[in-house]
């Protein structure tokens, strides 16, 4: 098949149509033939790799999406654990200045903006659904509530109990983490159980930490690779991606597959075992070049792979898929991604054309 047949599968926006599932060997061929960087970028952005991709599903989801303007609004839940009866504090649509002195309001507006900007500028993604989904946040959610959540349509942030935790609006990476659950919902929709659930959690941590690094303009070496730094009153962070299990005193996260934890709690330990792919990502970024920006090196490999994973993907599947995508970018990227997974005792293998 000649490349021009493939080009015919792109629609006017350059996106790949549902039936456009291209085996990696053919994609390599097309990439080698691509004459401009723009063409290469379009191929990489648009083509869906191998058996993980179910184009029809993406299209079906896209049809259900409502078009918004990616506008931010923040409501006060008034210490109730529900959004009904909440009061609108600020909205971009009204165009008003942020005069309210509430630090939670300031944090949520700044960090939600940072997340939206990151997705737009780095991955050309328009909000969580890629269609300008409007971003509603509820602050002062619950009474001393120790949590932040994506509820399927919006974000909820608790004030923390004031004893162990500060407000859950304190960390840009936690806000990026929650909004990335929205991205996952509209893309791979990774099942929230066991390994696929831990991948869902890990993707939120990976993007959350990249959003922080992009916001602060930090290289791999300069970044702290912590999730929720500043949230604890008497501890460092919720999680460490660099050294899982060292976020705080008693942090139970495993750092490699030989310490994988089987449990019935927390949907099969989704916040526990996420430490394994988290560290694989950190190690891959470090192996590639610690002096570079992760959102420009290995970050795009992770993003493009994870949004196309099948909903029941396990760690091995994610390892193979990231490695296969990295190979398309170059030997150095492939080597770094393989080293990342090897550090957590997962042997990443290239997907074969038979799997496509």
């Amino acid at each position, binding site marked *: 098949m000649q490349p021009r047949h493939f080009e015919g599968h792109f629609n006017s926006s350059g996106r790949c149509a549902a039936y456009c599932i291209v085996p990696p060997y053919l994609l390599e061929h097309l990439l080698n033939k691509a004459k401009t960087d723009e063409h290469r970028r379009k191929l990489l952005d648009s083509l869906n790799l191998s058996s993980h991709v179910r184009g029809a599903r993406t299209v079906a989801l896209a049809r259900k999406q409502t078009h918004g303007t990616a506008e931010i609004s923040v409501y006060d839940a008034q210490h109730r*654990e*529900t959004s009904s009866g909440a009061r609108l504090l600020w909205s971009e649509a009204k165009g008003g200045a942020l005069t309210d002195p509430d630090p939670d309001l300031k944090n949520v507006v700044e960090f939600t903006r940072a997340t939206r900007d990151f997705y737009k500028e780095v991955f050309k993604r328009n909000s969580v659904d890629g269609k300008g989904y409007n971003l509603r946040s509820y602050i002062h959610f*619950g*009474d001393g509530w*120790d*949590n*932040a*959540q*994506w*509820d*399927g*349509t919006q974000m909820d942030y608790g004030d923390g109990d004031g004893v*162990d*935790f500060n407000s*859950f609006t304190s960390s840009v990476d*936690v806000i990026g*983490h*929650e909004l990335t*659950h929205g991205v*996952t*919902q509209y893309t791979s929709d990774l099942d*929230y159980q066991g390994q696929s659930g831990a991948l*869902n959690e890990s993707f*939120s941590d990976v993007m959350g930490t990249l959003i922080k690094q992009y916001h602060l303009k930090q290289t791999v070496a300069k970044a702290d690779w912590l999730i*929720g730094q500043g949230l604890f009153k008497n501890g460092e962070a*919720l*999680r460490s991606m660099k050294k899982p299990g060292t976020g705080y005193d*008693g942090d*139970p*996260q495993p750092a490699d597959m030989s310490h994988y*934890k089987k*449990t019935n*709690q*927390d*949907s099969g330990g*989704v*916040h*526990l075992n996420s430490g394994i792919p988290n560290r694989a990502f950190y190690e891959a970024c470090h192996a590639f070049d610690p002096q570079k920006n992760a959102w420009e090196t290995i970050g795009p490999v992770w993003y493009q792979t994870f949004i196309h994973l099948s909903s029941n993907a396990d760690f091995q599947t994610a390892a193979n898929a990231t490695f296969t995508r990295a190979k398309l970018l170059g030997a150095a990227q492939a080597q770094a991604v393989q080293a990342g997974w090897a550090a957590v005792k997962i042997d990443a293998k290239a997907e074969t054309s038979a799997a496509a």
Partner: protein
Amino acid sequence: MKLTYARSGGVTGMVKRAVIETEHLPTDERATWEQLVAAADVFALPATVSAADPRQRDAFTHTILIEDGPRRHTVEVKGTPDAPPLRALLDRLQGASTRAPQ
């Protein structure tokens, strides 16, 4: 009556637990727990109460094991339930719980 409670999930991923044995409590406290359990009708609850939108992420999961004489029942509550009596019981259990090793 004995209540064994665990809260897991949430963005922190930390587990909190509480064990309440009402017979060891002062009379007024014991009465409070008994009223909360009766109002929430815990023994009549299904094994799983899904209060959360299935798309919800980082929600809490609450597990209550209740034992009273020969009766024994386990309930798992996902998210925040609408029913005020069950909410009141969960609030009290969360208040009594402490962080547990995982």
